[in-house]
């Protein structure tokens, strides 16, 4: 689990940045062009999967520690719920697009348009990215554990047979 060759490591450390940037673009321009929070979040998570494949699990754990990832996950969910409740408080009903209707109409095809939609996209992107990262991390952790368990059982069994 110490990663792959130097070539793979070098290339993936460059490509990872581009993938991450593309994910941010997909999230930020979700209300103008195809894409959105979910697809962008998955792209963000896949950049970390690339790191995990090339460098191994321990490197990624140092790069983005698990407590921070789970906090980002909670932060995304909290922001999305906060936007919904702000709609209830300011606009009068749950999830109403109060920014567009009252404060910040914006021009169509501009980055600042659509009211709360880009903000919701941002929250969902954060949430999906962090939680898919956690899913993959949990899966690799479990794989590691089941392998060590199997080895332990195997050694136990061989020990018994020797006795």
């Amino acid at each position: 689990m110490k990663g792959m060759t130097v070539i793979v490591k070098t290339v993936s450390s460059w490509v990872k940045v581009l993938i991450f940037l593309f994910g941010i673009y997909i999230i930020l321009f979700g209300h103008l062009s195809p894409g959105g929070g979910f697809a962008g979040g998955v792209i963000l998570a896949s950049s970390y999967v690339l790191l995990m494949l090339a460098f191994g699990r321990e490197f990624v754990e140092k790069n983005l520690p698990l407590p921070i990832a789970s906090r980002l996950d909670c932060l995304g969910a909290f922001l999305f719920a906060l936007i919904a409740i702000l709609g209830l408080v300011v606009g009068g009903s749950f999830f109403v697009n109060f920014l567009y209707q009252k404060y910040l109409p914006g021009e169509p095809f501009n980055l600042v348009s659509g009211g709360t939609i880009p903000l919701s996209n941002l929250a969902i992107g954060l949430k999906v990215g962090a939680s898919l990262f956690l899913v993959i991390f949990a899966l690799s952790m479990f794989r590691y554990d089941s392998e060590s368990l199997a080895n332990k059982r195997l050694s136990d069994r061989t020990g018994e047979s020797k006795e």
Partner: protein
Amino acid sequence: MAIFYILLVFMIIAAIIAVETKNLLGSVICVGAIGFGGSLMFLFLRAPDIAITQIVVEVLGLIILIRATISRDLTFISGDREFFGTVVSIVIILVIFVAGIRVFDALPAFGEPVFARLTGTASETYVRRGLQDTGATNLVTSVYLDYRAYDTLGEATVLFTAIIGAMVILRDKSRKLLEEPDA
């Protein structure tokens, strides 16, 4: 239109191979081929949002499945089929086939939206009033974050709950319990 039938035949062949092959890695790759065919089909049906999501999730799922598959010792599946199970599955497939023919007769042509033939439907309202109601030029986003934001909240809650469950089950304490069941 021919491209859809080519893709459909490709996906059906890949699905049959994925079920029938004895090689686990080949089966995983065939599942990935089905997903990529599906995303191509979404692209030709002019649904780029779904195509992007499908292809990204497909890549991620394929990587996870391959990592989970090739590290296992058991990459080949052996064993014969049961006679009773085969008979039951053939009967179920026949029933679904007969029912499906009736359903497909009622459907519009492939690639033609059902709601395009009706007037006053919700989708027509979204297309006509989406920009002035929400200000977002991507109508898919304006549907799932404005008109139907409750759905998105539910989806986010499902994902959140799944992560919490996974992290609780796989946390350090339970891992130690798993390693030492007697302690």
